[in-house]
C-alpha cells in the first residue's frame, strides 16, 4: 500500500504512466498483460492466486485523449487478438446506460493515488473526483465472499461536471458508473451502491470537535446483499465546513476530504495509505 501525491499534464498517456509507475512497478499482483495495443492503450491484469477468493480481473485502459482515460473491466483478455477473450458478460463497460462509459478524469494538475495489491484509488485534484477500481475488503474476522467482486466506482462521460463518485455510489446518468464485474450471485455488470444510500443525513462532525469516519459498505443493488466494504473510504454527504483537500487525523492516520466540484457536494474522506 502506498499513497502518492504528484502532478501530470492532461495529455494522452499520462494516466497509463501513473498505472505503470505506481501499480505495476510496485505490486507483484499488477502487470501489463497486453502491451501490444494501439498507442496509449494498455491492458492490465490484477492477479493474485493466493488471495481468498482468487483475484483475477483485467483493465483495458484507453488513454489516447486529453483530460480523461476510458477504463473497462473484464474477466478475461486475449493478448494475441488484443480483445476481450471470451464474452461472459462479466465485465464493466458502462453505467446507467450503454453510452455511459467509465471514465477517469486526469486533468492537468495534481492527483493523489492510493495503490494496493487488489485495487487503486485515483483522485483528480482539478475536478476533485475520487475513483475506486478493484476489490472490496472485509474485516478479517468475517467470512469472505467465495467469488471475487471487483468493482468500478468511477466517473462517466459527464466527468467535467465534477461529481465525486465516492460521495455518491450508484449508477447516475452520464456522471457516475458504479458496478461490480460480478454481483452477489455471480451475475455480470451488477450495480453496486453504498450502505445508507442516498440519504443526506450522513454527518461527519462530532461533539468533541472531531469527525466520525467509518468504512463504507457496498451492496449489490439487484439482491441487496453486501459485497464488501471500501475500508479506506468513508462516504458522506454535503458536509460543510470541509473543503476539498482538507485533512483530519485519527489515531495517527490522515484522511483526506474530497467532495467534487459539482453543485451538490458528494463528499467522502479517503485514508492516506
Amino acid at each position: 500500500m502506498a499513497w502518492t501525491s504528484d502532478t501530470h499534464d492532461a495529455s494522452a498517456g499520462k494516466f497509463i504512466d501513473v498505472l505503470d509507475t505506481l501499480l505495476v512497478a510496485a505490486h507483484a499482483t499488477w502487470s501489463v498483460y497486453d502491451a501490444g495495443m494501439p498507442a496509449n492503450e494498455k491492458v492490465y491484469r490484477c492477479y493474485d492466486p493466493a488471495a481468498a477468493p482468487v483475484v483475477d480481473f483485467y483493465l483495458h485502459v484507453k488513454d489516447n485523449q486529453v483530460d480523461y482515460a476510458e477504463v473497462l473491466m473484464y474477466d478475461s483478455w486475449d493478448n494475441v487478438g488484443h480483445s476481450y477473450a471470451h464474452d461472459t458478460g462479466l465485465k464493466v463497460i458502462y453505467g446507467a446506460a450503454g453510452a455511459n462509459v467509465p471514465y477517469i478524469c486526469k486533468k492537468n494538475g495534481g492527483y493523489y493515488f492510493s495503490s494496493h495489491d487488489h485495487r487503486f484509488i485515483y483522485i483528480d485534484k482539478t475536478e476533485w473526483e475520487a475513483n475506486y477500481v478493484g476489490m472490496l475488503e472485509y474485516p478479517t474476522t468475517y467470512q469472505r465472499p467465495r467469488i471475487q467482486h471487483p468493482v468500478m466506482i468511477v466517473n462517466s462521460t459527464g466527468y467535467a461536471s465534477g461529481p465525486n463518485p465516492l460521495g455518491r455510489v450508484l449508477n447516475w446518468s452520464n456522471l457516475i458508473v458504479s458496478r461490480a464485474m460480478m454481483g452477489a450471485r455471480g451475475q455480470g455488470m451488477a450495480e453496486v451502491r453504498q450502505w445508507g444510500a442516498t440519504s443526506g443525513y450522513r454527518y461527519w462532525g462530532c461533539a468533541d470537535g472531531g469527525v466520525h469516519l467509518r468504512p463504507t459498505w457496498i451492496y449489490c443493488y439487484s439482491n441487496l446483499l453486501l459485497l464488501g466494504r471500501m475500508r479506506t473510504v468513508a462516504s458522506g454527504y454535503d458536509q460543510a465546513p470541509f473543503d476539498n483537500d482538507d485533512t483530519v487525523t485519527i489515531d495517527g492516520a490522515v484522511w483526506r476530504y474530497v467532495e467534487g466540484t459539482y453543485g451538490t457536494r458528494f463528499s467522502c474522506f479517503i485514508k492516506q495509505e
Partner: protein
Amino acid sequence: MAYEFARIGLAAGDRLADLWDAIVVSNAKWSVFDAAAGANAKTYRCNDAPNNVDFYVYVNDNQADFSIVELWGDWDEVGHAGVGDSIGGTADKFRIHSVGGVHVCVSDHRVLLGCSWNAMGYYIGQPIRFDTTKNMPFYIGGGDNTSNFYNALGRFHLVGDTPWQTLWDHLGNVGVILGPWGYNSAYKFARTCRGTYVFEDTVVYENTNKICLGYLDGVCHLCTASQGFRNGEIITCEDGDWLILGGTYSTKYWAALRLQ
C-alpha cells in the same frame, strides 16, 4: 454489561419489581434513588461521576402493561419530585411496554430493552459518547401511541409515536431531537453474500446542528431494509448474538440489538 431474558408481569408495579429492581439496579452504577416517588412509581439514578454520567429515570408503573418514564437532571427524594431539566413530562409521554418476555441489556450507562409483546426496542441512557466530558442521556422508545407499535430503534423521531430525544445535547440544550446516521434511508442492508450479517452500532446526531454525539451501544438502525427479517429472530454474528425487531405495526422499522 449484562444480558438476560426476563419474564415481566402485566400488573401495575410489576415492571418496577421484575425489571428495574430485579435487574437494572444490579449494576453498581444504577440505584433506586427514590423508592416513594408515587403510587407504583420510583426514581432510579445512573451515576458514574468519573465518567461524567449522572441522570435520573422516573418510572411511573401505576397501570397495567406499560410504564411512563421521564428523564430528569436532578431529583428531590424528600419532596419526591423532579428538579431542573427533564424530558418525557409533557403531553407526549414516553411509554415502555415491557411485559411478558423481555430481552434486557444493562450496562453502566444505559438500559436496552427488546420487548417481545410489541416487538419494540427501547434505549434509556448514554450513547458511547464521542465527547465523554458531556452528560447526554437519551430516550429512544415508545410514545403516546398505544396501538400502532412502530419500532422506535428502527425508525426516527416522531412526536407521540417514536421519540428520539436527549435530555441534554453536547451544548447543554434540553430535549433536543436526535437522528440515526443515514436517517430514513431504506438502503441499510446488513446481509452479506455469504448469508452472514454485519451489524454496526449506529451513530446518532443531534438534529439542530447535525453534530454526531456517539454510537448507540448495541443498536444497529436498519430502517425499512427488511432483508427477510422476522420479529424476534436472533442472528449470531462474529461479535455476538443480535435480536431483530421491527415492531408489530404493518410498516416495519427494523433494528438489531446486541444481546450483551
